[in-house]
């Protein structure tokens, strides 16, 4: 998918006049479809289609021993798998570099305790805690992967229900715990402060949100901003290219606005009653 110079200039002019190739404005998102509870085995799952970017996220929970330097906190681990369905380059170990980049950006976004409170996942201080495995499967890459992945992860965590621990006792040094197995009696995670990522690309002189695959090609520099309750939990750059300080400040401001708007929209959608029939891939 490499574009010739003419196509790039065409996109550039579109961005100048705030009327992009697919008719959107500079700070407008493409239509998204979100669906939760799509994976049976998982404790919580979600699937998000942002135009032709398709991400499937499943959350699994296992018990684990808390790390030595934070005995009273649970653990969360992100694993990204780029399926070869997206592009032949992801075959074998091809997609590994992009996968580690996305996984690292999520880890740093969720690291501050304000964004995601791990102490709720602790069962017994220093002995036993829950470990959340958040597995992300990239089925199709249509540009703007960071936004799609972060929204899907937030939806999956919202959908996750952790079995309630009824009793914990400690004899010698092994721990028994009793978990209630009726589904309705389970703990929900507090994901309101969870961060949402916004990618801002600089095309020509203007900053653009939600770049499509083609627009990503002709962006001189692009930045990913993770926003949680109008605060930045992580800011990093994706792709090479340098920014003038003024454009950096401008895109931070733009990222904050868009991020909070996107966050509210997601929370509303999650609160609606889910549709009865499960659609999945069949529609």
């Amino acid at each position: 998918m490499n574009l010739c110079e003419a196509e790039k200039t065409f996109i550039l002019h579109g961005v100048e006049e705030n009327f992009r190739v697919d008719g959107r404005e500079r700070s407008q998102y493409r239509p998204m479809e979100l669906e939760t509870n799509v994976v049976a085995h998982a404790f919580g799952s979600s699937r998000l289609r942002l135009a032709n970017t398709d991400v499937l996220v499943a959350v699994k929970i296992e018990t684990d021993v808390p790390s030595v330097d934070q005995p009273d906190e649970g653990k969360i681990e992100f694993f990204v798998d780029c399926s070869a369905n997206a592009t032949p380059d992801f075959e074998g170990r091809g997609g590994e570099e992009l996968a580690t980049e996305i996984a690292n950006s999520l880890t740093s976004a969720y690291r501050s305790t304000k964004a995601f409170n791990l102490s709720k996942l602790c069962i017994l201080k220093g002995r036993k805690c829950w470990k959340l495995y958040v597995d992300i499967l990239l089925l199709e890459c249509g540009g703007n992967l960071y936004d799609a992945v972060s929204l899907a992860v937030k939806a999956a965590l919202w959908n996750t229900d952790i079995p309630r621990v009824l009793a914990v006792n400690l004899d010698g040094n092994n721990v028994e715990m009793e978990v209630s197995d009726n589904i309705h009696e389970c703990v929900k995670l507090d994901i309101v402060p969870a961060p949402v990522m916004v990618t801002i690309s600089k095309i020509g002189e203007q900053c653009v949100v939600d770049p499509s695959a083609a627009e990503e090609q002709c962006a001189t520099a692009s930045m990913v901003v993770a926003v949680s309750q109008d605060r930045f939990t992580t800011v990093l750059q994706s792709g090479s290219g340098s920014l003038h300080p003024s454009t950096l400040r401008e895109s931070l401001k733009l990222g904050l606005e868009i991020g909070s708007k996107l966050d509210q929209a997601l929370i509303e959608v999650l609160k609606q009653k889910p549709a009865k029939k499960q659609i999945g891939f069949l529609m």
Partner: protein
Amino acid sequence: MSRKELLSKIGLRQDGRRAEELRRIRCKLGVFTQPDGSAYLEQGLTKVLAAVYGPHQVRGGRSKAQHDAAIINCQFSMAVFSTGERKKRPRGDRKSTEISIHLHQALLAAVKVELYPWSQIDVYVEVLHADGGVFPACVNAATLALIDAGIPLKEYVCACTASLANNNVAMVDISNQEETLGGPVLTVVALPMSAKIVHMEMSQRFHLDHLPKVLNLALQGCKDIKAILDDVVRQHVKDIGSSTGWSQTNRKQ
């Protein structure tokens, strides 16, 4: 009871199916935009996605290219959350490489590779949910994806599993529960119309006299699957056709 009966006295299985009844198959073609052909198939609870790229120039040096035929490059990978217990790595272990090779042999028998010399066809299969009969579901999904990509096939390649219940009654399309109960599983990949067997695999064992019975049931299973896939393909082609306005049925009304 010693162990759960595979087949109850009145002939019903664990999930209520009769012995020769397939699980419900639902599939859809053209699920993704970027691959040349893609398909999604649900066989019971097993959910599989397949994508086809090609035929395109051979990647990674011309040493692999064949002068008279296309080479098929398959990759099977299971999503980390597809099984009950979380898998450490989606692909790269022995089992998935073995399934990729079997998939390669199965598709080689059906695709008319001699039409595309010096080129390569990529077939990628991703298992979203594994509930028994993973390999047959992958073969069927790959066939649908090849059809969606418009690659000429000699015939549909269908695959089906069959087993022998405790009172010597053959059963078709084995689910995960029945697999874990330890019954023998015969996996057959066949070209249904010409009734040719492309690939056969057997786990556990049962007496030789039962083989013809189980084998015929499996082949019959492949024929039924072929019929189902065929309807879906025709319906898909009709939808695509009517939307682009070239199919006669549309002009007649």
